[in-house]
């Protein structure tokens, strides 16, 4: 590691330092979640009602990636002030109502909120947070899948080498890990309920994978 730093000096930045943008249209334009083409709603209606695994896509939510340092008070305090709860520590998550946040890395958290609220929250956070902070809206690039049921844990064990046992992975814990041949942010949200945050371009692969992995237990798709 180099300790010394050589940097070019350039004139103090004019405002705004960051490009804020409401990326959602008003009423009208149709939104398509990453699994839109799978038409889960229809499958839910005609699919089986008995099965060991339940799957649901929680589509079109607001996804914000927060980057900042815990040494940055405005970042830590600002978050609590805007969200009403604290940033969780390593591998923990926190939530209030429809809003939840996941620890991703020592300087990274993933906030998931109702789709329409993402921009407002981003703005509020920007207002209260100063110093070295980044907020990236990734709502279009991810989706949330909820796996539930008595065999859901077996599907996870087939898909990832992480230890999902109660003793290691209690409700509220979150890990980013390898999932089949891609990755997912996995959070336990109930005794038999897990939430997967996956990337848009891999969503179809994961959908195929899950159908396959669930086959022996019976997959119930929830609309």
């Amino acid at each position, binding site marked *: *590691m*180099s300790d*010394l730093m*050589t940097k070019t000096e350039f004139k103090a930045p004019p405002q705004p330092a960051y490009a804020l943008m409401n990326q959602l249209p008003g009423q009208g334009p149709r939104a398509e979640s990453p699994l839109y083409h799978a038409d889960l709603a229809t499958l839910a209606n005609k699919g089986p009602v008995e099965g060991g695994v339940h799957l649901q896509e929680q589509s079109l939510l607001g996804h914000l990636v927060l980057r900042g340092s815990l040494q940055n008070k405005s970042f830590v305090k600002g978050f609590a002030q805007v969200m009403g709860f604290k940033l969780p520590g*390593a*591998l923990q998550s926190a939530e209030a109502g429809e809003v939840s946040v996941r620890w*991703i*890395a*020592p300087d*990274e958290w993933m906030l998931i909120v109702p789709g329409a609220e993402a921009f407002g929250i981003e703005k509020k956070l920007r207002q209260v947070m100063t110093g070295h902070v980044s907020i990236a809206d990734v709502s279009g690039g991810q989706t949330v899948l909820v796996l539930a049921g008595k065999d859901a844990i077996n599907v996870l064990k087939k898909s990832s*080498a*992480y230890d999902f046992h109660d003793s290691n992975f209690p409700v509220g814990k979150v*890990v*980013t*890990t*390898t999932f089949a041949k891609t*990755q997912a942010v996995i959070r336990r949200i109930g005794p038999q309920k897990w939430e997967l945050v996956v990337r848009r371009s891999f969503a179809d692969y994961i959908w195929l994978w899950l159908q396959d992995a669930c086959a022996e237990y019976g997959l119930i798709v929830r609309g």
Partner: protein
Amino acid sequence: MFSIYCPYCEEHREEDEFHAKGQAHIARPLDPESYSDKEWGEYLYFRDNPRGLHHELWVHATGCRKFFNISRDTLSYEIKETYKVGEQPHFTVNQDK
């Protein structure tokens, strides 16, 4: 398949979450222009490659995306320690011959 303790996630994870990135503690020269071709070539390519204790740079690729160091025996594959970038290893061998 190794079981690797990520010093940032603070727990053991499976090797398939990580990528090995070569020898650790190779600082980029601060003044590359003052380096001769030979010196630059040595920075670029020449490595310790020891049979025994080795300090390696790894990245938690599908986890927290953080780089960190591992002290590992390249013969027994035992991992002696993992430590953050910027920290120094506790396990070292005296390097003469």
